[in-house]
């Protein structure tokens, strides 16, 4: 696909008029999707898709188009030519853009991932075997992901990877379930079996009579996947320069009033150790990392080319949405193995779900417990907990009420597959919080 993409960019470049610049991106993947319910196949199939974005620039005018590639060279050349003609026609009607910015320094990069994915039949056999006698529901997604950038200035960037992500749950009954995932580059049956055994152990606890608690403040432990929901919500405007300057950031009080999180909280966009392509759609190569919050204080924003121009701040390679794709929360000092004991009495939360802001500018958010959430007494898990709604501020959760973060962190690839398989990830510790407000 790489040669094919480069060929298309070369051809399109040749056809440009003298004062035009072209920026092109490729988003391609071949994906096997096997959806399961009650330990049987619900929907299974394969998707082959390739999208190419074309941004045509003339002076300070620009317009972009995303089109589907067929893989047939003549057909795709024709589509690209037609799309560029369409954009060319529009530029005459498009006002000048004072905030246009794209990389003019040629900086080529490449990352080519090997293919060590398992055969679909073998993997499916193993998954169905894990589900035998249990109620397994989830999805196995696997295949090649390719991203490319090329411009008429001669820059070429390439990123390809072959990944799988099996995201599944074992259900006991109703809403009582254990959620697990197994993701990576090579399917190793023994690793998968280990994940299955861990989930099965938690499933046994879910068979105990569930506990219901009254609304109020409780000491809680958020496992890394639960903390990911809170951190993920902060990514909605929390770290982008535009959101900061337009005051819609949920971290407004950190910016305007100097409110701090706990000094153990250091958040970075850690591109070097993530899974995402290290270049953006305007041709900027991303730095290895950007420190967003350091020792509880806000430090740097993610800055897209557009925001860079609009606010006069140096671009740090962020995409247009200025949202992290490889977020990394520094480890703390607590040992995760001590966690039920350190929690002593309270709620052990493996997952949170459906977070949203209940007061965005106040940094307050709400969401639900979901999947294996347990009531802990005397430092031991004693019962599953019926779902509870929390509503609290990030300043209390990761500030005044944060007891500590764990030394151990989990690398959590994003399992989302909206339009295409995600290459985002987070690396997070667990968090022990002295008081979390449950409301319903």
């Amino acid at each position: 696909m790489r040669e094919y993409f480069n060929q298309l960019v070369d051809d399109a470049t040749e056809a440009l008029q003298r004062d035009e610049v072209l920026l092109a991106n490729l988003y391609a993947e071949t994906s096997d999707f096997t959806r399961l319910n009650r330990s049987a196949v619900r929907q299974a199939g394969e998707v082959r898709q390739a999208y190419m974005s074309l941004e045509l620039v003339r002076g300070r005018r620009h317009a972009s188009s995303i089109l589907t590639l067929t893989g047939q060279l003549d057909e795709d050349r024709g589509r690209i030519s037609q799309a560029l003609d369409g954009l060319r026609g529009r530029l005459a009607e498009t006002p000048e853009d004072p905030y246009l910015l794209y990389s003019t320094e040629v900086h080529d990069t490449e990352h080519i991932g090997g293919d060590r994915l398992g055969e679909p039949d073998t993997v499916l056999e193993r998954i169905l075997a894990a589900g035998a006698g249990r109620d397994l529901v989830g999805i196995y997604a696997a295949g090649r992901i390719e991203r490319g950038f090329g411009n008429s200035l001669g820059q070429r960037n390439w990123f390809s990877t072959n990944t799988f992500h099996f995201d599944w749950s074992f259900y006991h009954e109703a809403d009582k379930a254990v959620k697990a995932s197994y993701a990576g580059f090579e399917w190793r049956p023994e690793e998968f079996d280990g994940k299955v055994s861990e989930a099965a152990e938690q499933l046994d606890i879910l068979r105990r009579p569930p506990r219901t608690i009254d609304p109020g403040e409780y000491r809680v432990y958020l496992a890394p996947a639960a903390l990911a929901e809170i951190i993920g919500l902060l990514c909605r405007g929390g770290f982008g320069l535009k959101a900061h300057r337009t005051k819609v950031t949920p971290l407004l009080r950190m910016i305007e009033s100097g409110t701090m999180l706990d000094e153990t909280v250091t958040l970075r966009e850690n591109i070097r150790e993530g899974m995402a392509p290290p270049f953006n759609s305007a041709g900027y190569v991303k730095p290895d990392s950007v420190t967003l919050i350091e020792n509880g204080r806000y430090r740097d924003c993610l800055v897209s080319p557009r925001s860079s121009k609009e606010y006069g701040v140096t671009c740090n390679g962020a995409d247009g949405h200025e949202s992290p794709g490889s977020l990394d929360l520094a480890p703390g000092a607590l040992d995760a193995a001590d966690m039920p004991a350190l929690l002593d009495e309270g709620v052990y939360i493996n997952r949170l779900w459906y977070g949203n802001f209940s007061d965005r500018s106040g940094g307050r958010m709400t969401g639900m417990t979901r999947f294996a959430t347990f009531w802990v007494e005397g430092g031991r898990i004693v019962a599953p907990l019926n779902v509870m709604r929390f509503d609290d501020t990030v300043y209390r959760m990761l500030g005044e009420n944060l007891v500590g973060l764990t030394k151990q962190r989990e690398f959590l690839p994003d399992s989302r597959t909206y339009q295409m398989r995600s290459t985002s990830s987070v690396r997070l510790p667990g968090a022990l919080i002295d008081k979390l407000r449950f409301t319903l």
Partner: protein
Amino acid sequence: MLSTLESRFREVAPSGCFCSLRYVRSMDEMLAVRQDVPQPPRLYDDVGAMITVIKDGGLGYAATSDLSLSGLRQAVRRASAWSKRSAGRSVADFSAIDMPHPRGEYEGPETVAWEAVPQTEKFDLLREVCASLAADDSIVDRRTSLSHTYLEQIYLTAGGGRVVQRIGMLCPFISATAAAGGEAISRSLGGRGYCRQAGLELLDDIGFRSAGPGVADEAIQLLDAPNCPAGTMDVLLAPDQMILQIHESIGHPLELDRILGDERNFAGTSFVTPEMFGSYRYGSDLLNVTFDPTRPGGLAGYAFDDDGLEAEKAFLIEKGILKRGLGGAVSQHRGGLEGAASTRASGWNRPPIDRMATLNLECGDSTLEEMIAGIERGVYMKTNCSWSIDDSRNKFQFGCEWARLIEDGRLTKLVRKPNYRGVSATFWRNLRAVGTAGTADLLGTPNCGKGEPNQIINVGHASPACVFADVEVFGGE
């Protein structure tokens, strides 16, 4: 395109099994002006097809953007391989399902075509509206946009089915953010709810051209308003909040694929169980909810769903009693339940699943004035800005952009950051008044997420304003 595609499909479709082709072309265009600066136009032309094969009880699909004869032949081969792989290991014997072979056409309503107005004129309009949002220095961000989609879908089955559906959709948007003293408030024109199958005539229907000053003024007023008080009281919800309430706590729980367990790993399960259909009291006698993709202008209008089932209006809840769920041919067969033609896919590269389409709350007989007059202590809330609900679709919490207190039957002071929470199973039984058609609006949401692999789809909702008793209300920090 149709005749070429059809002849190629007929040539490659295997015999002795069910085979379908679902072609989708989606052409999107987004024009926006922010802070008086026109943003670069963004176009999107997405085209491809999904082949589905059902054989020996298994079901497999293959999606491809290569619509040549060889491309479709390969897709059939790959779909057949997946069908074979899943045979005998599936949640159902798919070969036992009587899949429809429909024939028909559907054309969405459109009076003023998107293309009829040049881009320059559209930018002029957006600039004008954006400028009208600049009420004073406290407005720190202003944005307005028009998003248009032209969708063409062709559904063919080897058994002779042939459906063509063409739809134009428009989503206008206006938003202003006011900020001062460490506080920020955003106000918009109906959130992103004013999305319909329509042409540019929609702009006049919703007052788009003159809405800017009102949006900005409300943002400024809200910035100075006190927080919404906390307490248990009545709430009067405007249509642009009602649509989220209907969507999250009626629409999703009634999806048959949730009830059958398909979504339990992602979007969640449902507190509704199969035995509830026909007898369960979902809400008060005033609650009447219909599935109606035939309603003109509804964002998710169509004549046939993506598995070929013909759409027709149906009551899901009548006088408060649950009648049927949302699920197409496959789910109806699997669950042995009545459903609706609501199996839809977000595009050519995702398989169809049970969806809401256009889901409406039928109008009642209370005017807005009567509803306000009937409330001793309560809050009138408009325009959803936050939503969250548990995975069984029971414990919910919503936030709105705008609210005004109701005291002794009169609207009184403006309050900011209104939120309320409740439980679906009891909330709808506290439905105390349903507004007339004069209080109603036809709205939609273009971003309903669900499914594995994940899918974002457009959903339409029509609703009047409604009153609910004894709701837990609260404000911001």
